């Protein structure tokens, strides 16, 4: 709500404090201020003019020549194109050299040969929003309802010199959605007691209860429902001062009856509704829940099929209004209304929210019912509105109130312990200072020993426990006066746990290996969520996704990496080597949280080495990807336990270029090329991916690391070249070598792979270097020869190897 500085100043003495300063102070002690609005910002030299005479423009059928008194000795001529311009109007005149809305400069000029000394303005032309301009002036110039001093700057006469402090409230402070609440808040801050206009209602009409029979069937949902009748009203525009209050708050003035309900809404924060009494033939009001599919037309002419959760105001039969949300077309106030039935009520916030949400009818009224109402002011607001209608519409008030329900909540009593306040805040505020703050808040209290018993007024329904009061004390005492300290007490040890450490080590390693880290979305499409898995379970689906692109929980990280690749390819970034660490979501049963598994995945596409003056470009291949995986698994300490097998179960990957990575008997992940038909479909170049399940590594038993001295005796290398059937894998050869080379074999390295005509079809040549080391002695030729013989015999016998 935009709090008018001038209006507020009538309720709290602001001592002339600068509006921006006031706003800053409010922000720091209570309510965040989004902005301070100056309606006349950027406008100048706009004055009140009096049209003395008019005559048609000789060369135009829609322009009028006006002689306008601007308070100078001579009137000036202004050409005006508005259809509603007429003699004896008091109007808004932009003088030559003035600035109007949109920073437009007005110049002295000629229009079709006639001199024009400025411009007669519509409200929109001096910055009014279309939505607040009274309908009668929507398509023409604005005309003041009464004579105003000619030549005077127009701003004070239209409320444009006011400053509007835009309160951006949190849900708990809806008590400031009315001027009274705002005045209490600002008053507490400035140590001022707010004062409000007195309501002196002289009811001279019939008893209300004889005019209308009011019943509420759901008292739980409608704790207060009060009505009064104002008869013989004259419908006409409201006085300008009231219109100004409305339009400065974004509300369009309509007529005195509607405007009064809106004015009291702004004043008290209490929504009111006015019915045309004569259109309610039954003279009966029944508040109930709607029937399923009950038809109803709101005053914006929309037709609805209501739901049983909606509250409706009925005439005993059919709905007249959607309670707290919007009135009906059939009972609305019209220019011919003479008797007004006014409603002031409290509706259950949850019920109103449901209705406002499904109908998407969010109004000033519904917002306030949703967030809460000052239950103390329901009756006062009704009286205030009736009084204003008597004053401004010459109506007659009915006597007494027709009560459908009137149950006020208890006023909570909270025991405040000053020692506790200081214990929580870390301050040394005296009990006297706390009492002073309670006084500023206009809360009643009495001492109870060292404690203070505080009665919380109903207008502050956000306060019910001591912690709430501690906040009141703290904010009005001033957060800037809080000391700055650090927690004392027992020392604690901060550290990563094993899982967090593993993740950090893995990420650091991949960075060191040249991969860039990405963060992709966890929510994907169903095919993306389940790709790169064999028999992926049905993915978890959001009940109400925002877009179909982000509707399912991912079960793999690779799909996200491919999306990242596509984004980069679309932006001409072709060399992509990226990784992501994050959770995937494996469904258990529908009612339980899924298993969230920490994974790490990487993708390679484009060049492994860039073309440069030193080297040729080389595209990535399977062994780039696998090398990174091997290096990573070595750093994570599981390389010894890991082996690689051909993987053909993953249909999104190349069946001949994918390795299943096993840690013992557990599936750890995969590394391979994206399936060529997949690449083709997605328009990707050759792309390799890997994914590892870090939970498998976490569960693995790592042997303790015990240091060995560096060997002091010479090592011996022996090379071995073999011709084998092409289906014999490197792993098979290495396993056999390791099994037969004896205990001094330190490692085996393959250093050449060759296939070609020279060695025959379906054959390939593999060359290995065996590295022997005895830590305690120099190895003899004899020992090594014996080991080599055993190795070659095994290779020949078991793998039909030809030793070259």
């Amino acid at each position, binding site marked *: 709500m935009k709090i008018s500085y001038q209006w507020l100043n009538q309720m709290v003495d602001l001592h002339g404090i600068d509006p921006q300063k006031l706003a800053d102070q409010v922000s720091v002690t209570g309510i965040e201020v989004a902005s301070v609005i100056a309606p006349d910002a950027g406008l100048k030299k706009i004055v009140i003019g009096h049209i003395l005479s008019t005559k048609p423009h000789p060369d135009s059928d829609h322009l009028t020549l006006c002689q306008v008194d601007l308070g100078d000795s001579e009137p000036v001529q202004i050409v005006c194109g508005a259809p509603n311009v007429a003699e004896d109007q008091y109007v808004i005149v932009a003088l030559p050299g003035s600035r109007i809305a949109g920073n437009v400069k007005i110049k002295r000029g000629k229009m079709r040969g006639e001199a024009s000394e400025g411009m007669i303005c519509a409200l929109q032309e001096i910055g009014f929003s279309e939505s607040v301009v009274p309908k009668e002036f929507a398509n023409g110039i604005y005309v003041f309802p009464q004579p105003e001093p000619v030549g005077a700057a127009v701003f004070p006469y239209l409320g444009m010199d006011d400053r509007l402090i835009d309160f951006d409230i949190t849900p708990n402070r809806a008590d400031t959605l009315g001027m009274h609440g705002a005045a209490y808040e600002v008053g507490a801050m400035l140590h001022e007691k707010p004062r409000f206009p007195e309501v002196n209602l002289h009811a001279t009409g019939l008893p209300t209860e004889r005019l209308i029979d009011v019943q509420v069937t759901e008292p739980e949902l409608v704790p207060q429902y009060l009505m009064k009748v104002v008869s013989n009203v004259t419908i006409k525009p409201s006085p300008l001062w009231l219109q100004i209050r409305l339009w400065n708050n974004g509300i369009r003035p309509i007529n005195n009856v509607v405007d009064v309900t809106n004015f009291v809404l702004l004043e008290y924060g209490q929504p009111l509704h006015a019915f045309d009494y004569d259109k309610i033939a039954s003279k009966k009001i029944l508040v109930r829940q709607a029937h399923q599919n009950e038809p109803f037309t709101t005053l914006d002419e929309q037709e609805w099929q209501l739901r049983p959760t909606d509250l409706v105001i009925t005439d005993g039969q059919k709905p007249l209004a959607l309670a707290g949300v919007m009135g009906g077309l059939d009972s609305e106030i019209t220019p011919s209304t003479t008797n007004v039935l006014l409603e002031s009520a409290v509706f259950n916030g949850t019920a109103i929210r449901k209705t406002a949400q499904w109908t998407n009818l969010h109004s000033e009224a519904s917002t306030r019912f949703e967030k809460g109402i000052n239950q103390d002011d329901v009756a006062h607001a009704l009286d205030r509105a009736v009084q204003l209608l008597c004053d401004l519409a010459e109506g007659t008030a009915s006597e007494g109130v027709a009560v459908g329900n009137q149950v006020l909540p208890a006023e909570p009593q909270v025991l405040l312990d000053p020692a506790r306040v200081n214990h929580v805040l870390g301050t040394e505020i005296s009990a006297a200072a706390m009492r002073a703050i309670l006084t500023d808040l206009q809360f009643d209290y009495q001492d109870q020993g060292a404690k203070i018993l505080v009665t919380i007024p109903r207008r502050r329904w956000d306060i019910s426990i001591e*912690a709430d009061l501690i906040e009141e004390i*703290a904010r009005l005492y001033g957060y800037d006066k809080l000391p700055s300290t650090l927690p004392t007490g027992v020392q*604690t040890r901060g550290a990563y746990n094993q899982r967090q450490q593993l993740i950090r080590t893995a990420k650091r390693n991949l960075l*060191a290996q040249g991969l860039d880290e990405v963060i992709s979305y966890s929510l994907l499409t169903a095919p993306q969520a389940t790709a790169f898995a064999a028999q992926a379970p049905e993915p978890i689906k959001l009940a109400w996704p925002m877009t179909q692109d982000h509707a399912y929980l991912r079960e793999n990280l690779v799909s996200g990496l491919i999306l990242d690749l596509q984004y980069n390819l679309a932006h001409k970034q072709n060399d992509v080597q990226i990784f992501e660490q994050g959770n995937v979501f494996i469904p258990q049963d529908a009612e339980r949280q899924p298993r*969230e598994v920490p994974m790490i995945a990487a993708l390679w596409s484009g060049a492994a080495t860039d073309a440069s003056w*030193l080297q040729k470009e080389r595209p990535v291949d399977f062994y780039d990807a696998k090398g990174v995986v091997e290096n990573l698994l070595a750093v994570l300490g599981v390389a010894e336990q890991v082996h690689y097998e051909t993987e053909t179960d993953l249909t999104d990957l190349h069946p001949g270029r994918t390795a299943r990575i096993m840690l013992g008997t557990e599936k750890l992940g995969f590394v391979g090329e994206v399936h060529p038909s997949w690449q083709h479909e997605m328009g990707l170049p050759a792309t390799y991916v890997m994914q590892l399940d870090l939970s498998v590594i976490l569960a693995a038993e790592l042997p303790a690391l015990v240091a060995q001295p560096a060997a002091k005796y010479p090592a011996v290398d022996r090379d071995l070249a073999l011709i084998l059937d092409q289906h014999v894998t490197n792993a098979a050869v290495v396993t056999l070598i390791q099994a037969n080379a004896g205990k001094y074999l330190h490692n085996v390295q393959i250093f050449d792979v060759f296939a070609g005509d020279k060695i025959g079809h379906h054959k390939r040549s593999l060359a290995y270097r065996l590295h022997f080391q005895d830590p305690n002695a120099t190895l003899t030729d004899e020992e090594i020869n014996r080991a080599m013989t055993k190795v070659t015999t095994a290779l020949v016998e078991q793998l039909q190897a030809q030793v070259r």
Partner: protein
Amino acid sequence: MSLKDKLEELKASGLVDIQKADDQRQLNEIRVKLLGKKGPLTEVLRGMKDLSAEERPQVGEFANKIKSELTEAIDTQLQTLDQKSLQRRLAHESVDVTLPGRQNKVGTPHILNQVIDDLEDLFIGLGYEVIDGPEVETDHYNFEMMNIPKDHPARDMQDTFYITDELLMRTHTSPNQARSLEQHDFSKGPLKMISPGRVFRRDNDDATHSHQFNQIEGLVIDHHVTMADLKGTLEVVARHVFGAERELRLRPSYFPFTEPSIEVDISCFACGGKGCSVCKHTGWIEVLGAGMVHPNVLRSAGVDPVEFGGFAFGLGPDRFAMLKYGVNDIREFYQNDLRFLHQFQREVK
């Protein structure tokens, strides 16, 4: 011609030859020719037997002097030639040092994770544990335990991706407050934790909204933890991230799970508080929300709110990174354009 004259002449012509020599081989030849067994000097010395007894030592001495002078000249020339050949080799081997070197690629950590890592390091140093929690949460932990019952207006503040009535994508990292409060053994000392992680809101992605972003929850609970402790802690954080000169401003706010609740502003790091476009001409920038843990949160987690209390805060690494590095579109973090990511290769602190 006397023997002495002969020696003089030998020296003069020898020195000329030495000077002329331009490689080691020639010099060796000269050495052999002049000083060798068949050389002229040996010959002269051989002729000394014909000299008288008093002449012999004089001439002998003179001949030795000539010999050592020639030897020295040869050595000097040899050194000069070595120097020259070294110079030639160095000149030959020189490279263009301005050509770029051979580099191994080094990856760039994602900027959001850099911000998170940096904060984790800070808090670990302050004695905080790092707690992980599920990204798919129950309504119970995400809302009920955080003092946000069904139909609470605060549920409007966080539009939620529900999966079932009871399961949802967590809207904040706050449920880990409840989870750690339930698990912590207060007989072993205070609870000090941070909990970073992904969170989700039912938002349309645009420059300032993302349906996925990050949060770091913080929680300290002990027998006596004050709001002043919260202020001091947040000062440490703000100054660590945004610079030592930052001032803090606390403003009242509202979160269902804290009471009192505050928003925290820092003095603008771009203008120092004078007002600029970064701080929307206010001199202050809102960076995080915090407060004293609501008694209901403690009570529902089985912690006595009379005996124990403390503070909680929530930081947004996405917002921190946007502010600190002038990122204007949050989607850049999740599109992973390498040109964007690579900017943060420099170790950012």
